């Protein structure tokens, strides 16, 4: 089956990861804008990061035959630096207008502060203005309360729930998310959040409707092959191939396709390894020309 990882931070990953992902059948991905493990201190760092998501990272992915898309947004952690947050929100519309930006995100809550809520609400409005879906991060701490408050803010926003994806769900949150009409994401991590076996149990109990599964691999301990591994776990549990395909390809395409900006047919099957981005290639030592 074709595999689509709807949440993976490739900027933090190596070319070995890209190679392994392509070999495992991953053909497309969405890289949400997030924080970098330590706070940025100036607008310029955000802007360069946004530009890299649209430029160099898209090029890198293409070199492995993987179609790269991204979401743009101010993440909840850094929303707490309010003077800087205002600058980021001011420049954000320029980036929401770019090709292959398929949602506003990750937005949401980290520590449930007022500043986080203000940035969250402002970006829900930006999503409506730019006709984009939304990717909502739910907090690690007090996840249920954070998720419920997120659903309230979505309900009060101009967005219809079918254009909102609430991510990083667990056994306590997913039924409420599904009841709201939002899409429901599961992040499969090596230790935390959710694992393949628990996810299979959830699918066995509730079916696949509006579920997405992702690796959310980033600069922490994580595994960019968790989507194909989850597909394998579903097969091992007896799910037919068409269910697997629905989960790992059809659903991400359906959700992010609402942006009108998915580009899934532009990658050559054999990428041109001599290609360059702004004159730079991913090769080392060998001149591309």
């Amino acid at each position, binding site marked *: 089956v074709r595999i689509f990882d709807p949440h993976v931070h490739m900027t933090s990953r190596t070319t070995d990861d890209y190679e392994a992902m392509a070999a495992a059948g991953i053909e497309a991905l969405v890289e949400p804008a997030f924080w970098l493990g330590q706070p940025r201190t100036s607008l310029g760092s955000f802007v360069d990061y946004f530009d890299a998501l649209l430029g160099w990272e898209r090029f890198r992915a293409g070199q492995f035959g993987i179609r790269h898309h991204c979401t743009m947004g101010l993440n909840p952690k850094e929303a707490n630096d309010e003077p800087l947050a205002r600058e980021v929100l001011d420049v954000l*519309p320029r980036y929401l207008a*770019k090709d292959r930006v398929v949602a506003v995100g990750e937005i949401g809550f980290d520590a449930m502060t007022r500043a986080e809520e203000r940035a969250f609400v402002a970006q829900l409005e930006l999503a409506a203005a730019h006709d984009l879906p939304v990717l909502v991060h739910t907090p690690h701490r007090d996840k249920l309360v954070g998720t419920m408050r997120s659903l309230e803010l979505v309900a009060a926003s101009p967005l219809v729930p079918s254009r909102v994806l609430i991510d990083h769900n667990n056994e306590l949150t997913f039924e409420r998310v599904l009841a709201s009409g939002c899409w429901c994401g599961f992040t499969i991590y090596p230790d935390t959040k959710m694992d393949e076996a628990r996810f299979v149990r959830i699918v066995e109990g509730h079916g696949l409707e509006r579920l997405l599964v992702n690796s959310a691999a980033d600069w922490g301990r994580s595994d960019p092959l968790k989507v194909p591994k989850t597909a394998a776990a579903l097969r091992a549990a007896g799910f037919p191939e068409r269910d697997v395909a629905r989960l790992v390809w059809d659903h991400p395409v359906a959700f992010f396709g609402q942006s009108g900006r998915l580009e899934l047919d532009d990658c050559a099957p054999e990428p041109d390894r001599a290609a360059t981005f*702004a004159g730079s290639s991913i090769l080392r030592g060998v001149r591309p020309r």
Partner: protein
Amino acid sequence: VGCAQDGGHVISLGGRSLGGRSLGGRSLGGRSLGGHSLGGHSLGGHSLGSDPPDHRQLERVLAARLDAPARRWLEQARGEVARAPGAIATIFPAVARAVGRGPLDPGARAGDVHAWTLDAAARTLLLVALGPAAGGELTLLYRHGDAAERCAILRALAFLSVEDTVGVPLVEDALRTNDLYLIAASLGPYAFARLDDAALAQAVLKCVFVGVPLSGLTGLDERATPELAGALARYAQERVAAGREVPGEIWPLIDRFQPAPELVAIEAELTRPELDRRRAAQSALAGRAVVGARRGS
């Protein structure tokens, strides 16, 4: 090809005339602005002065290539930025989704870095629609623009009335990159009218180094200098001494001024003990003869 013969506007799209229509020699609105072509970048050493060229020919060519919804979108977008210039911040990045990314000339060669694209043409018209507000928007549009947006801005410069303090730094930025499309887009009539001989020579050398074909720089013949010829000849000498190929297209520029010490040094490579250097010299000089014969005929 691509040069205006008598001062009219010629839209040349990568060296081809459009659909067999001859546009040469027709001047628009009675204004003669010196040789100026869209694709071939011919300005022939004339100064643009304060009067930028007319965009209406570009408009007609683009309109013929767009379907009705794309034309409507563009019309609306032009109206919108004319009324509220700030709207260009989010309209400009969205252009390619509405009008496409393909070549403006359907017959353009794939990978032709000099060829206009549909989105660059549409973006140029949007910037023109900004009128006097263009200067205020350009720097941030470029700063936050992706490569296609930046190419469009660079190509549009020739059609805009913006201060040199706004436009020239963008050209200089593009020339610092190694992106073939940005470099090609930056070396249009706007840059040819503003870069001094030394800066232009550096830009041409950069083209040769990174592989931007000089054939797309149609104002180049009139701007060639002995210094440029010497620099290109030293480049050829360096390539030969390294046993490498010399691009044939640099010879006409070298041979206009015949820089003696460099040419003597290249010919001396024919008798080097190292086989690869002798071969490289033979190949380079054979290429020079071929190009010379072609130019002579």
